[in-house]
């Protein structure tokens, strides 16, 4: 896997290539930080009492934070945070974040699906947490070197 400043080559991104999977920890502190950075202060992302009162098992991560982690996974592979030209996900299950030092573990992987014009590839992305598939229909178009 390239270092953050080294770019992934289009010629070496054959369809079927598996991106090296990564694991990300998401703690309550990360949810607070993301709420501030994104401006999404929805209470289910920081208040356990309210999250449970609306039927959730616990505080859950912002769907957009999980999508951002998948985006970061792809741009680290590409070697350029500006490499993604299209990106879409369905939020299929919440990432449940317990109130402890470890938080939730989100496992992200990807597979090059097809080669496109303009040095772009389509990549199918998977994201799982605590045995659940948290993103589905997750696909990005990534411009490579």
């Amino acid at each position, binding site marked *: 896997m390239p270092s953050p400043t080294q770019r992934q080559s289009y010629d070496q991104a054959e369809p079927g290539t598996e991106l090296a999977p990564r694991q990300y920890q998401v703690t309550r502190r990360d949810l607070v930080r993301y709420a501030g950075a994104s401006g999404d202060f929805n209470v289910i992302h920081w208040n356990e009492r309210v999250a449970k009162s609306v039927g959730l098992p616990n505080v859950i991560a912002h*769907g957009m934070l999980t999508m951002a982690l998948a*985006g970061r996974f792809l741009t680290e592979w590409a070697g350029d945070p*500006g490499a*993604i030209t299209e990106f*879409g*996900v369905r939020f299929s299950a919440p990432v449940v974040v317990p109130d402890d030092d470890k938080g939730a573990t989100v496992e992200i992987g990807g597979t090059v699906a097809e080669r496109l014009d303009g040095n772009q590839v389509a990549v199918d992305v998977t994201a799982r947490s605590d045995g659940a598939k948290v993103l589905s229909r997750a696909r990005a178009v990534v411009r490579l070197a």
Partner: protein
Amino acid sequence: MAINTDYIGRTFEPSEPYEVSRVKIAEFADAIGEPSPLCRDRAAAQAAGYPDVIAPPTFAIVVSSAGSAKVTHDPGLGVNYAMIVHGEQSFAHARPLHAGDVVVTQSTIESIRSAGNMTMLTTVTQIRTVDGEHVCTARSTLVERGA
């Protein structure tokens, strides 16, 4: 009150201009763990061919949320915010947002569909610079669980 299907196709007023800043981009990159110097250091971004520090691809949600709040908080639309979850999200970028961009967002309700006791509200938000350059199209589906 259910979500009002008369709103299908309605385009809302554009947002106020939003100035994309290096500080906010860096804060967002820190929050998602994006390590690239291109999201923090102007010289590094310019060496990579960008005009200034560039935003990670989902940063567009920070910009589009002001415009989309006009949609979800419209009293006539009838969204019950307490029963909403984010169902789907997509972005199509003409180019990355960068520090110095001044952008305006405008949202249109693309569809309102029911499935069982759930209602799906899909909104398309265009992000353009104040000079009219299209930068990003964001499409968001919110799912409202019925009572």
